[in-house]
């Protein structure tokens, strides 16, 4: 089982790197759209995961604070992307409200959580739920427009499918890990699912970058 974890962990770091490199190569195709922040998000992810592993395995220290800071930028940048891409004003307003709500909860976590040793679970779940909500709004806006005809070549569509599947699967895992955690082999099943979800999400990102066509 440990060998499987190790290979899955290495696979997902490798995937982060590959997808980041491809996002940079394909950057000229989407540099004029809100999607231009995607390489930043991908780089932040790669950097945080690498630094987190380095601190954990080399210095045997808690790396939680790095993730606590990282998730704020990660969710905020995705909210920004969806707010910019969605054209309907009503949906933009909902995303702004979602972002404000997330910022409040995130701020609350700094006050009420031991940020050095414990992850910001509440703000993470709130961020993930709001992101799923943004993706649903994005899908509604696509279905209402003629964009649905060219969705196969739309980068954000594939990115959002990856994110959607990941968070629908990962939110329950996060809840179970936080409130039902006990050190035994049963939890390892969930870890296998979690790593598989990350790989699936990045494969969708990869599909998006490889199939995309220029979008203004």
């Amino acid at each position, binding site marked *: 089982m440990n060998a499987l974890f190790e290979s899955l962990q290495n696979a997902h770091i490798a995937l982060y790197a590959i997808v980041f490199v491809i996002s940079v190569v394909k950057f000229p195709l989407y540099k004029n759209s809100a999607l231009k922040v995607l390489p930043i998000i991908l780089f932040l992810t790669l950097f945080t995961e690498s630094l987190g592993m380095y601190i954990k395995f080399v210095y045997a220290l808690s790396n939680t604070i790095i993730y606590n800071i990282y998730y704020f930028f990660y969710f905020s940048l995705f909210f920004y992307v969806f707010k910019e891409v969605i054209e309907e004003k009503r949906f933009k307003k909902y995303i702004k409200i979602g972002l404000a709500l997330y910022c409040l909860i995130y701020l609350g976590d700094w006050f009420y959580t031991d940020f050095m040793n414990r992850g910001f679970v509440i703000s993470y779940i709130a961020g993930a739920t709001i992101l799923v909500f943004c993706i649903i709004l994005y899908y509604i806006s*696509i279905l209402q427009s003629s964009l*649905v005809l060219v969705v196969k070549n739309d980068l954000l569509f594939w990115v959002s499918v990856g994110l959607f599947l990941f968070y629908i*699967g990962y939110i*329950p895992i996060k809840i179970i890990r936080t409130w*039902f955690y006990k050190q035994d082999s049963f939890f390892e099943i*969930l870890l296998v*699912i979690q790593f598989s979800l990350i790989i699936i999400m990045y494969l969708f990102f990869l599909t998006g970058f490889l199939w995309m066509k220029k979008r203004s």
Partner: protein
Amino acid sequence: MDEKEVIVIAAIAIPVTLVIIVIVLFSVFSRRKNRLLQEQERAKKAFDRELAESQIEIREETLRNISWELHDNIGQLMTLAKIQSQMAQERPELLSEVSETIGTGIDELRALSKLINPEALKSLSLREAVSLEIERFNRLKFIAANLKVEGTEIPIEGNIQIIIFRILQEFFSNTIKHSRASTLDVVLNYSETFLNISAGDNGVGFDKSDKFMGIGLKNMETRAQLINSTLKIDSEKDKGTTLHLQYFYI
């Protein structure tokens, strides 16, 4: 429920849910895409049908115009020439007048021939086509017509131009036949994003509840919608009728 049961349920439910989501997501998107494609196909067929009808109507209108011109203009000139030539048998000094009348007739015939040449018509811009109609109205003294062009002329796609021209032609035809107007003012206003056309007469106007007029208006509105335009016709009894057509280039 202990934590092991929760984990087992989650481990089964999560992959199953994800598979269901993927299936639902892709089936919703492909159904919507297919429906949109069908709608586009229907819209294209409707456009082609209207385009074909417009072309036929323009041809019929042109034939009617030729008939009028031959009868009212060239026919009259020829009759005049005949009378003048009969008079010239007794008074030879009138022969120059006969020659002049026949010359005018030939010029009118040439103008008509140029106007009905399909190749010439195809190469005309909207402004030129409308301008020829206005000149014809003035030449035949149907109505005192005036064309004003504002802004820089922007070429319009051929098929769309045919439909716009047909809408205007139908309006002009109604003005001449039914409005009893003495003036017709047409303005083509080219802006960067759209073409604004207004055409107004000073005739008797009509009541919009008139069923016969309603059908004609509906026809024009349907055609305007097909080319991404808005059409508005304002009319008031004894105050004339004005057409406003706004065509967006994209």
